[in-house]
């Protein structure tokens, strides 16, 4: 391998370091206007009347549009995006702008377009809306009770969907069990909080009747399809382009009201329009992950071997379906993954609340499933007086059983097969790096000094590289430059560098000769975009196959031109060379010769064009796994938790770029620590958000972040030719579980049980006080 597996410099870095990136808010077009949205201050209310006369009259204001103004121009006002599932009880799609009812704080009611954002916000404050406040439902458990206020006036109840997942004879397993333990757990994950908020810039070319939308989206092709559906336009009349994206983390995969409304405003006003989300809007109008409540039981035999798990999950869905039931599906699916569990049954209820819709944040429900299983395993260890790592070792899927067919079905119906890996080895290695066996001595010494040290661990397995495909075109231009176009979407994970590496491996080994275009629907017809740790797996595979075909053809052309065997040729930069000689043919020359000359046959009877487009289909997912061990200190007086050491050993198959992989993992770990200790999107009982600044909602900062020690195990997956598994979300997945395990261990003197995440200082002080009584 000349490029793959090496820490080549990233293509993305230099412009970003010099302040020359082009993010959504950096786009300026001649005559561009700026938009602000008027949003509901109520969690639930009826709209009686909207008076926008004063706003329209303000100098510098070009338009105020409400639903009534837009409706004549919309083929449909609804964003129909829910992933298929038989479990839905209600279809609740988001409208572009609210009609006669608002169902969460922050819901868009009107758009104001003005000369600049300052004026637009002045005018937004002048839009007079007569609301009649209605009872709101805030808690997803209360939402399912008979007397609960309905999140939507027209809904019969607040149950959005319900399904059961599982296999085996669970009740029989519990009957024969030596021990049964029960846990009630609350888990919360907050928002995405990319440091760049969302944004949209739209321009309509009236001459050509073409609409271009720049959007900070993770899914440009989905955005294009929705714009076509909602605006009644065809694919040739809409182009979506993603500029540099300042972090995605999940919520940017969603298509939003602001995207379509900004686009339509540009059409109606015949002027470019820009809308840039501010942080307050990000808190109330961008999707989040939020709350899950679990009641679960585990059955084990005398040796702590798992016999069965059963229980129920209530999942907060928010007010609309902005993605589907995939999140609780992932959570429930993830509980048994990685362990040999003979019988399983989970009832999942998805509840409507008067809050912004819930969709995946980095990790997408998987951390919650891991948390449930790992909390149960800690409970088993404690009750049976066994080492926590030993309980896991007895139950992990052993390496010799790979590939391991589970009895679970992925959301598309395929049986989940764990494709490769050595889970016990990852755990062993993590324990070794963390000094697990020696920890009791460290803990005892600390206790003598009045300090409370704890250690905890968690294993995870996560499906990555969700199919069915990603599209990639590889084309050698007449200049000799290699152009790569992909439906993949870059948002900071080094996607362009990754694709350039894979292509350069076949075509000259010089990544500076590879030009990568991602996230532009004008350059490739299909694409699924960035989610689910999928891009290196899916786009990487298509890039590899396409580049291999282009290489083969380049060598055929050169073989014909230079009259040597293909096996005697190599590609170096922009040059095809006869090995060990100075006889060469430029790649650009090869491309020209096969681009054809009118009236002349193509060389060697070859097909035209030095290019290939691939949409390699891989339905099965590649399962990444790993183990996290956390050592921390708890201050029992203040409740503060300080992580002293964090070891993370993982297996993402073949590593394409070691430094990028480490960066993805450590960033994910940081996110996981935030979920374990800090991030909490709070609402009051009326579903009013009460953490809507970054001073109230805490993201982890550099002083809380411990150094992370990484260990790599490489088991290439047989599912794709690169052997690669996804890594983007994996760092997050086991962290909350490992931190909970460690906090509980640190506070074992006080008999503290951790049944929630995040774990706040106030929780710890309370739990310690209870333990002291």
């Amino acid at each position: 391998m000349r490029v793959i597996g090496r820490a080549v410099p990233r293509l993305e870095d230099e412009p970003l370091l010099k302040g020359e990136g082009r993010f959504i808010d950096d786009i300026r077009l001649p005559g561009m206007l700026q938009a602000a949205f008027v949003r509901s201050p109520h969690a639930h209310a009826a709209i009686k009347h909207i008076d926008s006369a004063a706003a329209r009259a303000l100098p510098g204001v070009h338009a105020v549009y409400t639903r009534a103004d837009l409706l004549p121009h919309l083929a449909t006002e609804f964003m129909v995006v829910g992933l298929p599932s038989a479990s839905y009880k209600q279809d609740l799609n988001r409208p572009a702008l609210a009609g006669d009812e608002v169902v969460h704080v922050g819901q868009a009611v009107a758009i104001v377009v003005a000369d600049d954002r300052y004026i637009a916000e002045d005018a937004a404050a002048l839009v007079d809306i007569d609301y009649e406040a209605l009872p709101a439902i805030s808690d997803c458990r209360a939402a399912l009770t008979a007397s609960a206020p309905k999140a939507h006036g027209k809904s019969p109840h607040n149950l959005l969907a319900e399904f059961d997942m599982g296999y085996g004879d669970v009740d029989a397993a519990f009957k024969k069990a030596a021990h049964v333990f029960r846990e009630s757990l609350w888990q919360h994950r907050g928002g995405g909080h990319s440091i760049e908020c969302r944004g949209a810039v739209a321009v309509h070319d009236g001459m050509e009747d073409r609409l271009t939308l720049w959007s900070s989206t993770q899914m440009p092709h989905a955005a294009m399809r929705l714009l076509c559906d909602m605006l009644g336009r065809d694919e040739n009349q809409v182009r979506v382009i993603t500029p540099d994206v300042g972090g995605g983390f999940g919520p940017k995969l969603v298509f939003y009201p602001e995207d379509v409304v900004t686009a339509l405003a540009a059409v109606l006003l015949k002027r470019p329009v820009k809308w840039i989300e501010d942080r307050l809007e990000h808190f109330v109008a961008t999707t989040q992950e939020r709350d899950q409540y679990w009641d679960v039981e585990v059955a084990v035999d005398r040796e702590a071997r798992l016999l069965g798990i059963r229980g129920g999950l209530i999942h907060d869905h928010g007010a609309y379906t902005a993605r589907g039931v995939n999140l609780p599906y992932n959570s429930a699916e993830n509980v048994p993954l990685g362990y040999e569990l003979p019988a399983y049954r989970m009832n999942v209820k998805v509840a409507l609340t008067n809050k912004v819709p819930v969709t995946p944040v980095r990790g997408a429900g998987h951390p919650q499933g891991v948390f449930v299983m790992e909390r149960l395993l800690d409970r088993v260890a404690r009750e049976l007086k066994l080492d926590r790592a030993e309980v896991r070792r007895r139950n992990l899927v052993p390496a010799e059983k790979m590939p391991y067919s589970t009895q679970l079905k992925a959301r598309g119906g395929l049986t989940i097969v764990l494709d490769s890996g050595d889970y016990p080895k990852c755990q062993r290695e993590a324990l070794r790096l963390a000094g697990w066996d020696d920890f009791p001595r460290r803990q005892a010494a600390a206790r003598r000094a009045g300090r409370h040290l704890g250690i905890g661990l968690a294993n995870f397995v996560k499906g990555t590289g969700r199919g069915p495909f990603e599209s990639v075109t590889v084309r050698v231009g007449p200049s000799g430059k290699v152009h790569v176009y992909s439906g993949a979407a870059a948002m900071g994970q080094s996607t362009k560098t990754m694709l350039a590496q894979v292509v350069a491996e076949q075509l000259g080994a010089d990544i500076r000769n590879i030009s990568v275009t991602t996230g532009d629907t004008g350059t490739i017809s299909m694409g699924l975009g960035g989610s689910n740790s999928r891009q290196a797996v899916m786009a990487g595979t298509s890039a590899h196959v396409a580049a291999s075909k282009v290489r083969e053809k380049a060598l055929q052309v050169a073989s014909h031109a230079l009259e040597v065997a293909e096996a005697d040729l190599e590609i170096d930069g922009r040059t095809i060379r006869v090995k060990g000689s100075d006889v060469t043919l430029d790649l650009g020359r090869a491309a020209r010769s096969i681009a054809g000359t009118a009236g002349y046959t193509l060389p060697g009877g070859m097909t035209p064009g030095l290019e290939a487009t691939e949409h390699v289909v891989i339905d099965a997912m590649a399962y990444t796994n790993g183990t996290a061990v956390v050592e921390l200190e708890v201050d029992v007086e203040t409740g503060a938790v300080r992580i002293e050491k964090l070891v993370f050993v993982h297996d993402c198959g073949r590593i394409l770029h070691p430094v990028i992989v480490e960066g993805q993992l450590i960033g994910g770990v940081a996110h996981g620590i935030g979920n374990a200790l800090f991030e909490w999107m709070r609402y009051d009982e009326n579903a009013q958000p009460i953490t809507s600044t970054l001073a109230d909602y805490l993201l982890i900062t550099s002083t809380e972040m411990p150094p992370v020690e990484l260990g790599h195990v490489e088991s290439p997956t047989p599912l794709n030719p690169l052997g690669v598994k996804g890594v983007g979300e994996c760092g997050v997945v086991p962290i909350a579980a490992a931190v909970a395990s460690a906090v509980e261990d640190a506070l074992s003197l006080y008999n503290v049980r951790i049944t929630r995440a995040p774990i706040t200082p106030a929780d710890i002080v309370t739990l310690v006080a209870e333990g002291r009584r």
Partner: protein
Amino acid sequence: MSASRAISVSVNGVRRDAEVPVRLTLADFLRQQLELTGTHLGCEHGVCGACTVLLDGRSVRSCLMLAVQANGRAITTVEGLAPADGGLHPLQEAFREHHGLQCGFCTPGMLTTLVEFLRDNPEPTAEQVRVAISGNLCRCTGYQGIVEAALGAAKRLRA
């Protein structure tokens, strides 16, 4: 609508005279009027640090300052860090070498914050670097690459 004032500032060593609305923030002045879009806005309430610029050599949040308050002062933005004759500032080089950036959105604020810090603390410990950037949020890197880059740059700047 809102009153304007004439201001004169030095930005990255170049004198800029402008008529600005009194309520225009320094960040919007830099980004919109001067088209220096390297300074980023992540929260507009002074927490994330992405908009950090140097004002007479001291780091400030350009989202919390008005353009008129910068009258007569010298401002350095991320665009002013690299040498005019090409190449990168040693800190920028170190960020690239240590993977101190992923999406790059917080990077301008990290760089300006650390330029000031390394000037005042040429031999910092890792812990001091962590404290120095504790007012700058990064959602991608987990800060590890940034801390290593700052330490690497300090070494390079001392040499």
